[in-house]
């Protein structure tokens, strides 16, 4: 790692030198005019590294309008975001990442925790993050890397997660959701109520899970537990024996031809489901919406064992300071002020500050997305396309029911290295 950093450092210096030379040449030739103005009105630009979840063009446009901050998105997959934080910490300013990656990101020392007191809405952040319960007081499952376990650091430059609330927040919460299996009700033609159905021989050759080891194994564990074969102490932190028995169950199913394919990105999961290659598979909420918007029946099926949840939030690169750090706070505060929250809620995700999002949504929208009530009017996506006709009810119901039903969180296990090896073995079986 150090080697890589040093190398990029050198090449960047070389690059800077040559750019400086070019700039000098340009200045000499009189190509640059109005220099003093550029100095006084420095454009506010933030490089934003994250997955596609939060990165809407509408959000960056609105942000520019409201705050004058120009957001430059750097979009990568979850794994690549983490890789980039490790290897090129100077290539971004604001980081949007998932809580489960913190076990890798925080010890690397490449990120800077933000201070809670500078976040206007911090006290209004949903208790899902701070206390591990819904606003209605329902306790949420704490298996895996639940956000409240890794929300605070002991001090400004500490690499230890604090058990109690401090002023130093690893990630300022933004968005989260509860994931479950997606099904094709038109092809299954009977009610589905348990994760164990994923390995039901009835769906031989028509099931799928995702081929991202750290998330796939959680879905696998939900299935194993649902079949009643084993009860995990913590699905998000298995022992070697537990990893073995989980992968054994999945390997047997794979050898018996249970799975049609594994998927790795959003579009693959949509295509598998829409084309009828699979009828039951682990899935993400907007992917289900996408299939439905193609006119194909698809349900994000609530299951009795509960949901697997994930959450993400903002921090900044350790290289950010001065004015740029102020802009970062300004941006995060803007993000929590309502527009972005409403935008995310309308996509089927949940925003971290509910009150501001509510103020930016129509009452009928709030009732459909958050309260689990039948839609009074047609429900539209942020881009204006029709998602649901009037009368539809959201799969899984209200916020309380869905978030209250969370059983575990995406995680990085202590035995991560072993798990990855076992996952490769599973693929090779």
């Amino acid at each position, binding site marked *: *790692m*150090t*080697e890589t950093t040093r190398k990029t450092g050198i090449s960047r210096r070389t690059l800077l030198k040559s750019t400086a030379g070019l700039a000098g040449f340009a200045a000499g030739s009189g190509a640059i005019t109005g220099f003093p103005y550029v100095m006084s009105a420095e454009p506010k630009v933030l490089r934003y590294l994250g997955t596609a979840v939060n990165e809407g063009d509408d959000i960056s446009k609105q942000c520019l309008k409201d705050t004058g901050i120009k957001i430059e998105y750097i979009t990568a997959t979850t*794994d*690549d975001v*983490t*890789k980039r934080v*490790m290897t090129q910490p100077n290539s971004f300013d604001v980081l949007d990442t998932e809580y489960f990656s913190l*076990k*890798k*990101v925080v*010890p*690397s020392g490449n990120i800077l925790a933000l201070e809670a007191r500078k976040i206007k809405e911090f006290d209004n952040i949903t208790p899902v993050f701070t206390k591990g319960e819904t606003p209605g007081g329902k306790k949420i499952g704490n298996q895996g890397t639940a956000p409240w376990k890794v929300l605070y650091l002991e001090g400004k430059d500490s690499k230890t997660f604090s058990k109690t609330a401090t002023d130093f927040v690893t990630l300022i919460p933004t968005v989260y959701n509860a994931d479950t299996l997606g099904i094709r009700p038109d092809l299954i033609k009977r009610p589905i109520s348990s994760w164990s159905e994923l390995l039901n021989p009835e769906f031989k*050759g028509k099931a799928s899970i995702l*081929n*991202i*080891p*750290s998330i796939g194994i959680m879905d696998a564990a939900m299935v194993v537990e649902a079949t009643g074969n084993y009860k995990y102490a913590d699905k998000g932190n298995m022992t070697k024996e537990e990893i073995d028995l989980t992968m054994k169950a999945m390997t047997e199913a*794979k050898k018996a031809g249970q*799975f*049609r*394919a*594994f*998927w*790795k990105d959003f579009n693959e999961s949509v*295509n598998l489901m829409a*084309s*009828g*290659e699979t009828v039951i598979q682990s899935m993400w909420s907007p992917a289900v919406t996408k299939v439905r918007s193609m006119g194909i029946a698809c349900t994000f099926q609530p299951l009795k064992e509960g949901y697997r949840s994930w959450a993400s939030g903002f921090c900044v690169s350790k290289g950010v300071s001065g004015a740029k750090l102020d802009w970062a706070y300004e941006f995060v505060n803007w993000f929590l002020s309502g527009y972005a929250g409403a935008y995310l809620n309308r996509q089927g995700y949940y925003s971290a500050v509910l009150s501001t999002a509510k103020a930016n949504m129509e009452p009928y929208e709030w009732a459909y997305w958050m309260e689990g009530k039948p839609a009074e009017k047609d429900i539209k996506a942020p881009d204006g396309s029709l998602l649901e006709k009037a009368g539809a009810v959201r799969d899984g119901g209200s916020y309380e029911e869905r978030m209250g039903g969370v059983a575990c969180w995406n995680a*990085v296990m202590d035995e*991560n*290295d072993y798990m*990855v*090896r076992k*996952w*490769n*073995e599973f*693929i*090779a*079986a």
Partner: protein
Amino acid sequence: MTSASDDILHQTAPGLARGSDTARRGKTARLSPSFISWLQAGPMMLVFLAFFLIPLGFVVVVSFWDYNEYQLLPAFSGRGYTDTFEGCIAQLPDLCTIGKTYVKTLKLCFLVWAITLFIGFWVAYFLAFHVKSRTWQMGLSLLCTIPFWTSNVIRMIAWIPLLGRNGLVNSGLIGAGLINQPIEWLLYSEFSVVLALVHLFTFFMVVPIFNSMVRIDKSLIEAAYDAGASGLQTLVNVIIPLAKPGIVIGSIFVITIVMGDFITIGVMGGQQIAAAGKIIETRLNALQFPAAAANAVILLAITFMIITMMSRIVDIRKEL
């Protein structure tokens, strides 16, 4: 490859050196021919050194490092390798993960190689011996490149709607009353992987074999005919031996690409088929760089062994 081009440069260098000698005679000190050869080979050597050999050296070094969840630890460790070969002795006679992966990769590689060689050989044969006019030969070879006008990924993904459960082939067969149930193994199977790889890479066989064949002196074939050889005898005793360099070069292209491929195998195999490249990718994504590097070194060693074996059969340098 480089040593072969070095050779060519060595052969041509004296001529050039003489040329410059005459131009500068009596003016400045003479440059020795060998110095000029080095000068000519120099740029390529530097590029090779900077962008291939040195990074490769890093990969080998890093493969012997230790690591934790978030950083490389520059201390000697064989962990990348021991982890990779985990269970290879304990699980005997069953194969361990890496063993299974390479058996699968080699099997796919062999199938793709055999099929592309068969198809590629006959396409080249047709172009070289049945198409008489140069213009038509050129035209038809260009026709072969048309699939390359779109990207690899698109050519691969285009198979999916064709082969799927409700795809064109299955709907057609059901519609024609030939089958009642859709054929499942058309997609997300070894069949679809081999099909896509053959489709993608046959052209890499055609070009070098065609190139070797057009250089065969037609009088040799006439001589064989005059001596009473049958068509098959001419093919086996004259054409195939003379087309060998093309066959080997084409084979090297196809084998090196297929050994390292994990995208086609992933997409067409529904991510359910192991590939040597896939192991490297999974390790990289988990930030286990030394383990990934160790796997890369193993893949390189195995591919290198295959190529060495092939170049034992034919000395490409001699034939070129």
